[in-house]
C-alpha cells in the first residue's frame, strides 16, 4: 500500500512540476535541423531536397527553419551554442572568424568524400571556388549560390524599338543616347541609390576585363597598398562616371530608391536597364506584369580588355555546419546529396540560380528566357570570384573601397570623381597600412 501511496504522490508531484515546465529542447537525434535565409529564393528547393533526403534515410526527419534575417540571427546562435541547427544556409558574412574561433565543424572529410561517379566534393566543385571554404588549411564552409550579375534589360522594349544589345562600352553609351531620343520618356537606367553597391555587378566586371583574373587575384590578396593603384579599377570607375555621372542616363530620384523600388520602376517600363542579378526574376515574381520580357546582357566590353567575357557571380553565400551540431554526419550526408547532378539541376530549376559545381544548368527544361540568358553568361564567362584570405579583409580593414564604401552615389551626384575615389582609396590605405598590419598581428 505504501508503494501505491508513493506512486500516487510521485505522479501528482510530477504533474504539478510538469505543468510548470516551460523549457524547450534543443536539437534532436535523427532530426536534421536546417536553418536558412528565406528570401528571394523561397523554400520550395529545400522542401523538395528534404523529401528526397528523408526518402533515402528512413527514420530521419529534416526540420526547416527559414527567416529572411537568418544571417544576422545565426551568429548569436552559433557563437553561444543556443538553439543551434545542424546546417546553416547564409548570405555573405564573415564566417571565417567563426572558423578560426572554433565554432564550425571541420569539413575536410566531406570535401574528400565521393559525391557520385567517382568524383569527390572537391572535384565536383568549380575549380576557382575550391578554396572558398578553406581557412588555415582546412575546409569549414561550402559555397551556396553561384550567380550571374550585370545589366538586365527590358527585352520586350528593346525588340519593339529595334535597339541592339550593346557589346562594347561605346555601344552602351550610344544606346543610352538612343533610348533618351527614341524612348518616349523612358530613361536608360534605374538603380537603387540607397544600395548603390548594385553597380559593383557591372564595375567589377569592367575592372576584371582590364586587369584579367590574375590581376584581380593579386588585388584581393592585398599584398601591399600598391594594389590600390591598379589601372583597371580607375578605368572601370571612369566608365561608370561617363555612363552614370551623366544624370540624364538615370531616372529622376534614383538616389532615394531601395532595390525593390528600383526593380518596380524597371518592370513597369520607366527605365530600360538595371544593374542586377539572376535573382531578380524570382524576387519580383509576384509583381512582374503579364508579357513582360527581360534578359541579362553580357557586360559590354571596355576598350583594352584582356578578358572580355567576365561574370561577377558575387560568390559569398555559404553553408556551414556548427561544431556542436547534434547530427554532424547527417548534415554531411545532406550536403553530399546536394552536390549530386540531380540535386543541382533541381536546385537551379526551382530557384533559377546556379551553384558553383560542374554541371550544365542550361539543359534544364522549362527555365524562363531570362534565367536562360543569365545561365548562358554563367556558362560562357570567366568567373570573377573576389575571395580574399587576408586577415585585414576579414577584419573589415580592407575591402574594394576601403575609405568610404561603394562610391557610386557620390559620383552620380558629382560630389566626387572616379579619379578622386581611386586616389583617395590608395592614400587612405597607405596612411593606415601599418595600423592595419598591427591590428591583425601581421607585423
Amino acid at each position, binding site marked *: 500500500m505504501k508503494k501505491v501511496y508513493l506512486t500516487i504522490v510521485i505522479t501528482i508531484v510530477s504533474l504539478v512540476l510538469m505543468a510548470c515546465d*516551460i*523549457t524547450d529542447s*534543443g536539437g534532436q537525434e535523427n532530426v536534421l535541423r536546417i536553418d536558412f535565409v528565406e528570401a528571394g529564393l523561397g523554400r520550395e528547393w529545400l522542401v523538395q531536397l528534404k523529401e528526397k533526403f528523408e526518402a533515402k534515410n528512413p527514420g530521419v526527419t529534416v526540420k526547416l527553419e527559414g527567416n529572411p534575417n537568418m544571417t544576422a540571427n545565426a551568429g*548569436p546562435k552559433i557563437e553561444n551554442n543556443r538553439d543551434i541547427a545542424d546546417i546553416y544556409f547564409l548570405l555573405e558574412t564573415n564566417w571565417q572568424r567563426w572558423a578560426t574561433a572554433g565554432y564550425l565543424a571541420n569539413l575536410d572529410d566531406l570535401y574528400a568524400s565521393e559525391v557520385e561517379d567517382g568524383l569527390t566534393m572537391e572535384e565536383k566543385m568549380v575549380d576557382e571556388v575550391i578554396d572558398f571554404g578553406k581557412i588555415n588549411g582546412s575546409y569549414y564552409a561550402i559555397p551556396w549560390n553561384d550567380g550571374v550579375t550585370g545589366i538586365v534589360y527590358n527585352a520586350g522594349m528593346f525588340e519593339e524599338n529595334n535597339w541592339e544589345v550593346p557589346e562594347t562600352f561605346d555601344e552602351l553609351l550610344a544606346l543610352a543616347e538612343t533610348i533618351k531620343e527614341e524612348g518616349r520618356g523612358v530613361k536608360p537606367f534605374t538603380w537603387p541609390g540607397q544600395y548603390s553597391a548594385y553597380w559593383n555587378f557591372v564595375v567589377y566586371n569592367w575592372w576584371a576585363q582590364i586587369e584579367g583574373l590574375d590581376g584581380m587575384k593579386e588585388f584581393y590578396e592585398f599584398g601591399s597598398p600598391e594594389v590600390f593603384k591598379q589601372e583597371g579599377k580607375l578605368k572601370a570607375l571612369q566608365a561608370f562616371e561617363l555612363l552614370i555621372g551623366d544624370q540624364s542616363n538615370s531616372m529622376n530620384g534614383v538616389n532615394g530608391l*531601395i532595390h525593390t523600388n528600383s526593380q518596380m520602376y524597371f518592370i513597369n517600363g520607366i527605365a530600360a536597364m538595371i544593374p542586377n542579378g539572376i535573382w531578380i526574376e524570382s524576387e519580383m515574381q509576384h509583381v512582374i506584369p503579364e508579357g513582360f520580357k527581360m534578359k541579362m546582357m553580357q557586360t559590354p566590353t571596355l576598350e583594352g580588355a584582356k578578358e572580355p567575357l567576365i561574370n561577377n557571380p558575387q560568390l559569398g553565400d555559404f553553408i556551414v555546419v556548427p561544431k556542436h551540431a547534434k547530427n554532424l554526419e547527417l548534415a554531411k550526408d545532406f550536403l553530399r546529396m546536394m552536390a549530386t547532378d540531380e540535386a543541382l539541376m533541381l536546385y537551379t530549376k526551382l530557384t533559377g540560380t546556379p551553384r558553383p559545381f560542374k554541371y550544365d544548368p542550361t539543359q534544364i527544361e522549362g527555365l524562363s528566357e531570362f534565367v536562360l540568358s543569365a545561365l548562358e553568361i554563367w556558362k560562357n564567362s570567366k568567373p570573377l570570384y573576389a575571395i580574399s584570405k587576408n586577415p585585414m579583409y576579414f577584419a573589415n580593414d580592407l575591402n574594394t573601397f576601403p575609405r568610404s564604401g561603394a562610391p557610386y552615389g557620390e559620383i552620380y551626384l558629382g560630389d566626387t570623381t572616379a579619379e578622386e575615389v581611386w586616389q583617395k582609396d590608395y592614400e587612405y590605405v597607405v596612411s593606415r597600412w601599418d595600423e592595419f598590419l598591427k591590428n591583425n598581428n601581421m607585423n
Partner: protein
Amino acid sequence: MKKIISIVMIIGFMALLSGCEDAREEPIYEDLGDEMMIGAWVAPPPTKDSEGNYLYITEEHYQNIKDSGIKVIYGLYDNTMPDILAALDMAELVGIDYYVYHWGLRGLFQDVFDSQGNPIPEEVESDFDTFKSIVDNFKDHKAFKGIKIWDEPSADLYKGFALYKTKFDEYLPGKDFYINLFPTYASIAQRGGVDYEEYVSQYVDLIGMEFISYDHYPLMLFYEESVLTDDYLLNLEIIANQAVKSNIPFWLFIQTISYSNITGTQTRRPTEADIRWQVAVSMAYGAKGIQHFTYWTPIEGGVESFTPGMIEVDGKKGELYEAASKVNHEVLNFDHVYLQFDWKGVLTHSADPDNVNVNFRMISPLESHKRIRSIKSENDVLIGTFKDKDNNDGFMIVNFEDPFYGKTNEIEIRFNDATHAIVFIKGEKETVKLEKGVLKYDLESGEGIFVIPY
C-alpha cells in the same frame, strides 16, 4: 501509520502548491526618490541662422526634451566647445542632464602603451593634460553628467579605456564614463575576436564600469514584412546576468527610429506599441535605464539612412515624439515601485508548445516560480520575476508577440497564496481582487503589466 503517511503527504503536497506562505497585507511602496534612467541619443544639432544664432540649441527645444520624460540627452553634432557649452546651458535651464561628446576626448589613452603593453608615463600624462584642458571648460557645469567616451567599441580598446577611467574618476568623481556596447548580432571581428559574454564581462571587469549600456534593434523589415531578431532576449539575458553578477545596473537602447544601410539591413519604423513593447521586455529583465535611439533624427547617415525620429531633422515634433513621451511617462509613473525590486530571472510561456518562439528557445529561463501555479495565454508571454526587500514577489508580464501584427493576448495566471494584486497598467496603479488566486487580463499589443500579488 497509514494516517501519518497520508497527513505528511497532504502537507507536503499543499506546501508544493502553496509555496507555504500566508496571505499578506497590501505592500506599501514609498517614493524613495529613485528614478529610471531615461536617456536619448542625438541632442539638438548646432545649426545656426544667418545671424549666427542657434536654431535648435534653444530653451524651447530643450524644454521639449524634458517634457518627453527624457532625463539625459546625449551630444553628437554639438561637439565643439561653444556648442557643448550652449547645450549644457540649455539643459541646466530646463533641468535635465547632458552627456558631452567631444572629438578631442575620444581616442585618449589608447596609444600610450609600449610594446610590452606597459603605460608610458609621459604619454599618459600628455593625454591626461589634454583631457583636463578640455573638461575644465565644463566639469563644474550643473547639467554635466558625463562623457560619451565611445559607441560600440572593440574589446581591443578596453585596456586603454581602463587606464582612461582611472584618470577620469580621479578628475571627475561621480561623473559617468559612458561606453555603449555592441549587440549580440555584431560580428566577432567587430567585438575584437572575443565571444559576447567575454565582451561584456571584460567591459565590466577590465574597465571597471559602473553600469552596462548596449544597443540591440529588434524590429527588422524584410520585403515589407516585420521580423524580430532571434537574439533579442538572449542579449538581454547575457547583459542582465552580468549586471546581477557585478551588482550594477544596465541600460539599453530602444529603437525609436528606422534605419537602413548599404548592406540591405533595414529596420522598421516603430509605433507606440513597439516602443512600449521594447520597454516592457527590457523591464522584464530588470533594466534600470532605457535610452532612445534617437531623439533628433540624424542629419547625415554616412552608410546609413534614417526615417524621422522623435524630432525630425528640421526640428518638428514627429509622431514618435508623442509615442515615446507617453511610454516614458508611463514608466516614470511607477518606477519608484519597480526600482524597489531586484530581478530574479524570467519565465516564458508558449501558447503553442509545438511551435516555441525562437527568442524563447535561445534563452535559459526559470523552469518555474513557486508563486505561480499555472499560466494560460492566448499568445506567447514573457514574465520577468522580481523580489523586494520584504520578500514580496513582483512580475512584469509582457505580451511577447511582435507588435507589428497587433495581436492582443488574453492571459490567466493563477498565483499561489494571493487574494489580491497590485497591477500597474500603463503606469497606473490598480488593486485587483483575485478569485482563487487568478489574475485575468487582456494584454494589448506591445503591452506589459507589473503585478505584485499579495
